[in-house]
């Protein structure tokens, strides 16, 4: 029997890792990820999760320990946030290049300075090109479900890529939500044992993370790119299997009342649900609007995205990170380049808001969408708009 319980999302994510029977957790605590790894430490200490918990001295070490662990074929989990994520940066590239199936929850938080412990997506955007599969979740249930899916995706021998689950710091990590926790037996059926094809093994020695001369480096990078592209098929297969087993469906691009709508708002993460309410209210007021949410950030779902926005005239994109001095918010930049060569495409209006924990209310989203429609019509001298700054 599956049960629906009221539980803090961080605790639920840790419990999901337990359900997946992780072998190794190497992590360093950082707000707002702390409850995830604290609870995992507790589970290991109490003997409720038969895993090795490696308390390291930094996030750089956490990810390095994860490399070693995943290289032996152990199911490996870590979690971090913000400054911790950027401290890991160097090793993130190594994990993906070495094709090690590590799963990491990232409690999204602003980057210093000024110092902020609150949520935005500047940490995510700084690790965009690290070669990890990246999935956004919007609520606690999605965080639990996608943690389970992430292990199956990452460890699939056709994929073998590290995978990040992005959940908004505080807005998700620290709230108590009703969540259906799957049964251990169901998860065991869904998630096969990790079988890394060439693990570290004294009886069959291999060298990992070795040097590549110019004569082979570009081939190695291209292999990585091909592999990342091919992973999308498996990601969709895993989500489909998950749907069959647990009844909850996930897609690379998810749509809300967007079919046929002339104005779309594109969001990622927990603010998406607020934006949905704003869309409902605008529809009630007679506006022709809908919403598109990016769940899969890497590999970028080009086909699904283009399909989802093909009939729209205006696409308002919300970014919760700034590319200082750049052309737009990082998501809007990607979206623009995904659309640029199409003959028929919506006008993209880039909005930056919700930085460093600043809330965007339903009214805020309504303002953003309304202003976006106006800007699409009149044009603007700005590369992007910032919403909510006191002038």
């Amino acid at each position: 029997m599956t049960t629906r319980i009221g539980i803090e999302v961080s605790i639920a994510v840790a419990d999901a890792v337990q359900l997946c029977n992780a072998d190794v957790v190497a992590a360093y605590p950082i707000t707002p990820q702390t409850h995830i790894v604290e609870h995992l430490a507790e589970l290991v200490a109490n003997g409720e999760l038969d895993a090795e918990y490696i308390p390291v001295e930094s996030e750089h070490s956490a990810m390095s320990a994860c490399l070693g662990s995943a290289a032996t074929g152990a199911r490996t989990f870590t979690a971090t946030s913000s400054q911790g994520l950027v401290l890991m940066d160097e090793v993130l590239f190594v994990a993906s290049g070495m094709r090690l199936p590590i799963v990491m929850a990232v409690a999204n938080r602003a980057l210093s300075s000024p110092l902020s412990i609150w949520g935005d997506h500047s940490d995510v955007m700084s690790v965009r090109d690290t070669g990890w599969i990246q999935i956004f979740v919007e609520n606690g249930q999605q965080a639990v479900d996608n943690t389970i899916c992430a292990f199956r995706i990452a460890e699939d021998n056709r994929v073998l890529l590290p995978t990040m689950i992005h959940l908004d710091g505080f807005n998700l990590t620290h709230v108590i939500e009703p969540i259906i926790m799957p049964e251990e037996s169901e998860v065991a059926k869904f998630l096969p044992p990790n079988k890394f094809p060439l693990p570290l093994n004294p009886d069959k020695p291999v060298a990992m993370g070795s040097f590549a001369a110019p004569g082979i480096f570009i081939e190695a990078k291209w292999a990585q790119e091909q592999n990342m592209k091919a992973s999308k098929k498996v990601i969709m297969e895993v989500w489909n299997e998950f749907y069959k087993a647990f009844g909850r469906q996930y897609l690379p691009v998810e749509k809300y009342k967007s079919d046929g709508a002339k104005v779309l708002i594109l969001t990622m993460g927990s603010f998406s649900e607020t934006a949905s309410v704003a869309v409902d209210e605008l529809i009630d007021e007679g506006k022709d609007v809908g919403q598109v949410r990016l769940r899969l950030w890497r590999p970028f779902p080009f086909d699904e995205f283009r399909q989802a926005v093909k009939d729209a005239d205006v696409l308002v994109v919300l970014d919760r990170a700034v590319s200082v001095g750049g052309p737009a918010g990082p998501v809007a930049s990607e979206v623009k380049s995904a659309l640029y060569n199409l003959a028929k495409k919506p006008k993209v209006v880039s909005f930056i808001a919700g930085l460093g924990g600043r809330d965007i209310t339903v009214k805020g989203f309504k303002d953003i969408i309304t202003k976006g429609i106006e800007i699409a019509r009149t044009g603007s001298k700005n590369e992007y708009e910032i919403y909510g700054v006191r002038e």
Partner: protein
Amino acid sequence: MAKSEGEMTWKDLEIGCIVTEPGSARKYQSGTWRSQRPTYNFNRCIKCGLCSIFCPEGCIGQNKEGNFEADLYYCKGCGICAKECWTKVITMVEEEEK
């Protein structure tokens, strides 16, 4: 690694470039980097082996006369052996010179 580096396509690489063949670095021809090459006056060689200890490529071994000599497939021409040899057996010469 059945194919040489120059023949390998991206499809030939093991996942994550894992090297499954022990000692495969032996195929790597660092000798192509060389602009200078060691030449020898073995009359002065006392066969102490010091040059082979200092060689960063580890490419100096004993020839059939027992003298220490570089394997030019690997020798990158750094000249360390020439500097370290106390009896001045080794002279570095430009590759173009005979």
